[in-house]
């Protein structure tokens, strides 16, 4: 009977599951991305970034100076063991995220997990990892409550909504002190979880910073944004902050030009402004827009420059902030596994807790990586980059700048 059971289960498993890889001496990491559905562009870019990260860790890349694990092949403290990333599509569905996390843990026996883009999926997937006691490193999901549930196995490398809001407010305050006229700020955010949490944080921070704030909330995937743009035309804010996805942001830029509305400065909150289709579509009418990013290509020869070259060779496009945050999270995780010297989840958790990476060891512009008791990286931070010509250049904060800030923005003029 038990033979029958084993055969039955094995047959079912064979039908439902990909055959598990049997290579010895590999460290398995499960990664969950949105590879289909509305967020597929971001998920696929992240997949390419993590695959590149896998290559950097597994093969010797001495040219990438400063990055832990780049110079050696594999993980030195594990006898040069290779990292194998098992990529999974969570389809943007919290239930699928949960199901696949369970599969990665129980069937693939991954040592740790990486994800996830959607905050909703992050919430359910990390809960499964918590129940099984497997470390889950969140690369780019920004909802505050992911790390505020007392979880012991969730670690987040990325800055979150309140960090972004702080950065914008600080930047605008500096501009004001420098004599620019910045009194009113409009915040246009889409109304899904991303837009709502970031938009509301910015409004709060800007109000606290003494700015007059106008918030306009709109539906994602609009076919028409002229009502919002006309509102800008009426209210004439000095600065407009856009929090939304690709299609909407491209449409906004076009409509702003068509209706001839140009604030002194436009700040885009990553997402749509960082999408690879943004510059080809509206680059020449969006000259001078600021974008939030912790990623900057850096001077030729630097590690970040080389990483960007490798990414370009692989995908035909530049690395963007979101994918960069995934790659950074992957490196942080690999570093912890290496220091743990083991694939035991509890040891990896310990090593993650002890993480203390300096800016020179990072590919992203964080001030470091160090987790607090909730698992949030307290040294996460962000730059502002400005579209000048065909590319974005780092312009703020000044010690990170590679180009001079242009204020007011030129737009299409």
């Amino acid at each position: 009977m038990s033979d029958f059971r084993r055969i039955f289960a094995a047959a079912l498993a064979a039908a439902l599951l990909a055959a598990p890889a049997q290579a010895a001496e590999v460290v398995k990491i499960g990664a969950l991305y949105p590879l289909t559905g509305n967020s597929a562009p971001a998920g696929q870019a992240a997949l390419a970034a993590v695959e590149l990260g896998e290559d950097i860790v597994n093969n010797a890349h001495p040219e990438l100076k400063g990055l832990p694990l780049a110079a050696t092949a594999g993980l030195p403290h594990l006898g040069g063991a290779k990292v194998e990333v098992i990529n999974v599509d969570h389809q943007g569905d919290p239930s699928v995220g949960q199901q696949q996390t369970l599969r990665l843990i129980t069937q693939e026996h991954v040592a740790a997990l990486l994800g996830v883009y959607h905050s909703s999926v992050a919430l359910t997937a990390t809960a499964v990892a918590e129940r099984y006691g497997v470390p889950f490193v969140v690369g780019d999901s920004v909802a505050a409550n992911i790390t505020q549930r007392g979880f012991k196995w969730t670690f987040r490398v990325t800055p979150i909504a309140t960090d972004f809001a702080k950065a914008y407010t600080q930047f605008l305050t500096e501009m004001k002190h420098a004599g620019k006229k910045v009194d009113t700020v409009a915040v246009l955010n889409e109304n899904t979880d991303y837009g709502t949490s970031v938009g509301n944080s910015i409004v709060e921070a800007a109000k606290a910073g003494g700015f007059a704030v106008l918030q306009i909330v709109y539906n994602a995937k609009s076919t028409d944004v002229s009502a919002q743009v006309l509102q800008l035309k009426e209210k004439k804010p000095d600065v407009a902050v856009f929090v939304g996805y690709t299609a909407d942001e491209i449409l906004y830029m076009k409509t702003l030009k068509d209706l001839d509305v140009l604030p002194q400065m436009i700040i885009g909150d990553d997402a749509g402004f960082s999408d690879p289709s943004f510059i080809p579509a509206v680059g020449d009418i969006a000259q001078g827009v600021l974008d939030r990013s912790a990623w900057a290509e850096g001077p030729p020869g630097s590690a970040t420059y080389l990483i960007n070259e490798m990414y370009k060779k692989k995908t035909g496009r530049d690395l963007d902030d979101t994918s960069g945050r995934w790659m950074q999270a992957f490196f942080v995780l690999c570093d912890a596994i290496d220091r743990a010297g083991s694939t035991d989840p509890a040891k990896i958790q310990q090593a993650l807790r002890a993480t203390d990476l300096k800016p020179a060891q990072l590919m992203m512009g964080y001030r470091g990586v160090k987790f607090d008791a909730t698992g949030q990286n307290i040294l996460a931070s962000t730059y502002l980059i400005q579209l000048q010509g065909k590319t974005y250049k780092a312009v703020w904060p000044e010690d990170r700048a590679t180009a001079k800030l242009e204020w007011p923005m030129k737009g299409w003029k």
Partner: protein
Amino acid sequence: MKRWPLFALAAALLAYPWLVAGTDSAAFLQDTGALVLLAAIGASAWNIVGGYAGQISVGHAMFFGAGAYLPLLVYQHWQLPPLVGVPLGVAASLVIAVFIGFPTFRLVGHYFSMATIAVAELLRIVVGNWDFLGAAIGLQGPATARGWYDVIFRSAVPYYYIFLAVLALLILATWRMQQSRLGYYLGAIRAGERAARSLGVPVRRYKLYALMLSAGFTSLAGSLYALKTGFVDPDSGLGILVSVQMIITAALGGAGTLFGPLLGAAILVPLQTATNTWLGGSGSGLTYIVYGGVIVLIARFEPGGLLELWHRLLAARRRRAEVRHAA
């Protein structure tokens, strides 16, 4: 009707978690089993009004959503066990059913379908902008169990048997309904509303009864989803895909039949899981090409649902047996 297939089915369902236990894939296969049952509950509930009464609702997400939201809502705001919200969800769904049913049951055919889509979408947008209900960010359940009453388990097996019990109850209720006057009237309504009315069937009243029964069980499906997932947001609770999933599950197996929805769920959920597991990691979108393709093929070659194929095969065997008998 012969009894043995029924017993075999029951035995197989009861034994499933044990059958797959003992391998590495146990947890995942048990979890998938629970998801099959959950989809079967949703589709069977929809089947009462969509299959038996022939009123194609494309807005059942509103009942599913009510059932999913209330348990998490009582936890979010008052730290009550989510279970407390389950009856509240059913009550809310019944109220919505009456509220929706009265005006829309005047509408026939596609108008009813479109009205239900519109109401569900309306609800999704309103909930998505309402902070008390979690707005776009959604609601969460307890992250870890505070006690048994939070119904949080590491293993999927307890969920599996809870879902199985609810499904058994629902199928029993549907079977009883089929035998009763309600079932008889619904059959008449499905065959032709005008004729049914002229035969003296109180059409609107009985359609409303069917909708309420259906709504109550759909709400249970939503609650079970929320208890297991521990999270709901406007898309996963109230999105149009939630409604469409129930319809295609029932239609694929055979709408208006007792076991059609279960059959549909037993095919669709593993198909979806398998395509995602096999093809999802590459990110080519092949997952949905295969999934959509299989649905199209079934609709093309077996538009009445797969249960019809089964009945045809049985009938063919019986005929062969009779021929042999006569000879």
